[in-house]
């Protein structure tokens, strides 16, 4: 039982990071129907920028509490990623708005390769470790333990998700976003500037990615120029699992994927009598994904769209 609770907690923490990244995928997809393959790399850049700032601050010997230093790192990462997201959309996607659908997919892959290699040139090939500045407290919960970092990650993601939901459902900008997602032309007739909305969508998604990047590097204590790839892949899977284009779906998908993964890793050995070990954790996640999509072809919360005539 305590193993179950422990894996559940780990899964929820991991899942909430996936969910934040997945939101970025799903928002862009909802409006442009574009898989923004470079989104995982934006997350990585966020982690790298934050770590650089944090390491510099720690190295300069400023007398600040660890949490403040981490926050300063985050505050540097968010605008950097926002600018990056804005630039990517401007340079790589906007010129291809009316091109065949797979063309922007290829530029997205190109951007992803460029960002990865730029990061490698700037920060090197080695793993960068997160300085031990954050509180290392552990708390007991239902027979399992939860760390301070985990609690912060959970709370932050919940707050961000709530904020985003309110923004999309309640504000003028959110309404413009939803309108553009339904029909850019009609939204344009109603006075919505589709280009601005799309830019803002990218900027918001990138800000979330920055937060996710910092959280994941704080959680694992590491960052690496290649970390965005797998994280992006998982998050994209999560977005599809929940029903791509659907905000609540991305959150649900992310949490579910995280929980499935960690429970799978914890129990797969027992299920198969020790035949398959925890190294099959990813298989488990993808298998569930495929199974869900076979029975619900448009994801868990994705609307069932009729066949297009």
């Amino acid at each position, binding site marked *: 039982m305590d193993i179950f609770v422990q894996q559940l907690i780990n899964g929820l923490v991991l899942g909430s990071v996936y969910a934040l990244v997945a939101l970025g995928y799903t928002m862009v997809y909802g409006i442009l129907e574009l898989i923004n393959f470079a989104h995982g790399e934006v997350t990585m850049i966020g982690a790298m920028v934050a770590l650089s700032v944090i390491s510099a601050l720690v190295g300069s010997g400023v007398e600040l509490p660890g949490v403040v230093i981490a926050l300063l790192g985050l505050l540097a990462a968010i605008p950097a990623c926002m600018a990056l997201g804005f630039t990517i959309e401007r340079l790589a996607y906007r*010129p291809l708005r009316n091109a065949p659908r797979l063309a922007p997919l290829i530029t997205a*892959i190109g*951007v992803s*390769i460029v960002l990865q290699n730029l990061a490698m040139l700037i920060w090197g090939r080695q793993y960068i470790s997160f300085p031990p500045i954050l509180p290392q407290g552990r708390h007991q919960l239902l027979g399992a333990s939860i760390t301070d970092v985990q609690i912060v990650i959970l709370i932050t993601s919940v707050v961000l998700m709530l904020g985003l939901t309110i923004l999309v459902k309640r504000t003028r900008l959110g309404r413009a976003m939803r309108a553009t997602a339904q029909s850019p032309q009609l939204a344009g007739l109603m006075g919505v500037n589709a280009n601005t909305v799309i830019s803002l969508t990218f900027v918001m998604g990138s800000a979330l990615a920055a937060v996710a990047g910092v959280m994941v590097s704080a959680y694992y204590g590491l960052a690496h120029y290649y970390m965005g790839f797998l994280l992006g892949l998982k998050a994209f899977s999560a977005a599809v699992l929940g029903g791509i284009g659907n905000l609540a779906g991305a959150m649900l998908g992310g949490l579910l994927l995280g929980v499935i993964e960690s429970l799978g890793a914890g129990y797969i050995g027992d299920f198969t009598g020790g035949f398959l070990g925890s190294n099959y954790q990813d298989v488990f996640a*993808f298998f569930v994904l495929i199974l869900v999509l*076979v029975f619900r072809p448009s994801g868990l919360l994705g609307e069932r769209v009729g066949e297009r005539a």
Partner: protein
Amino acid sequence: MPRSKRQVWLTFIALGMMLALLPFAVDFGLGRSWLRIMDLALLYVMLALGLNIVVGYAGLLDLGYIAFYAVGAYCYALLASPQFGLHLPFWAVLPIGAAVAGLFGVLLGAPTLRLRGDYLAIVTLGFGEIIRIFLNNLNAPVNITNGPQGINQIDPVSLWGVSLGKTHQLFGITLSAPHQYYFLFLLLTLLVVFVSLRLQDSRIGRAWAAIREDEVAAEAMGINVRNIKLLAFAMGATFGGLAGGLFAGFQGFISPESFNLMESIMILCMIVLGGMGNIPGVILGALLLTVLPEALRYTGNLQRAWLGHVVIDPSDLRMLLFGMALILVMLFRPAGLLPSRQRKRELVAKGDVAVQEQASVYDAKR
């Protein structure tokens, strides 16, 4: 433009001579390593043409295509290496590999028939990853694939008692292993090109085009969408398995690392960059994307010539430049370098119908 039969034949003969002499010219001018790159490029042409059937003809976005390459390669490796002590002949192993890969294609296709566009993409991606992870971990409790270490000492391809792994003399010409593989791969590539061409204009090819443009309309016209889709997956996978078997024999060593997601994406880039659905375009894309990363290794010399010394290690720089090249090509030629005639028309056409057509090109909407 009307061309006489004579001209066509002359063109063919000239092209054939060029392809036959090319390996010697490359070997002489650029060295043995480039000859090996050419061999690999031919394998990628086969792979790209295989994926082109699935994505280009049938419009099914497949992001796990490399899995079939892996299946073909592992079939070959398991049946012709000391791993199980089996050494079956090439003509037995290659068809087995291709057939098993085709079977996997159907296996992937069957549960995904209802999925569209990006949902299909993510399932195929997951499938590819599952295959890779299994290959990576099937060394315990029973050792099948030898895990991350991979399988080595795979038998080289051997035709009628002549091992392509050794150097041979023929009419006074020395043929090294890469030369011989070049000719084998060239022949098989031509076969794949031929099959692709014939498929494109066949009843099946037209059915693929129909489901690509509009699945519902195609079904209404009496096309059996299920079978036609499965056939696309199976055909594409078979070509992938074929290339995989050849790769195993050529390389003599395979490991799961060669079959990661990036490879699948690369092959997709080849066909989109070259011009999806158009065979010359796909071939161009495959050659370009195989040769370009290798050629970019020479940026060190350029840096030395322009700046006096090497500022950035070329091996660090080459993928960066490669990514930029991908972006730039797509920005300036969104339909690919050599788009098919139909696509070109769809892209430049103006007016309502054309816009509608455009929206449904490789439509993954819903």
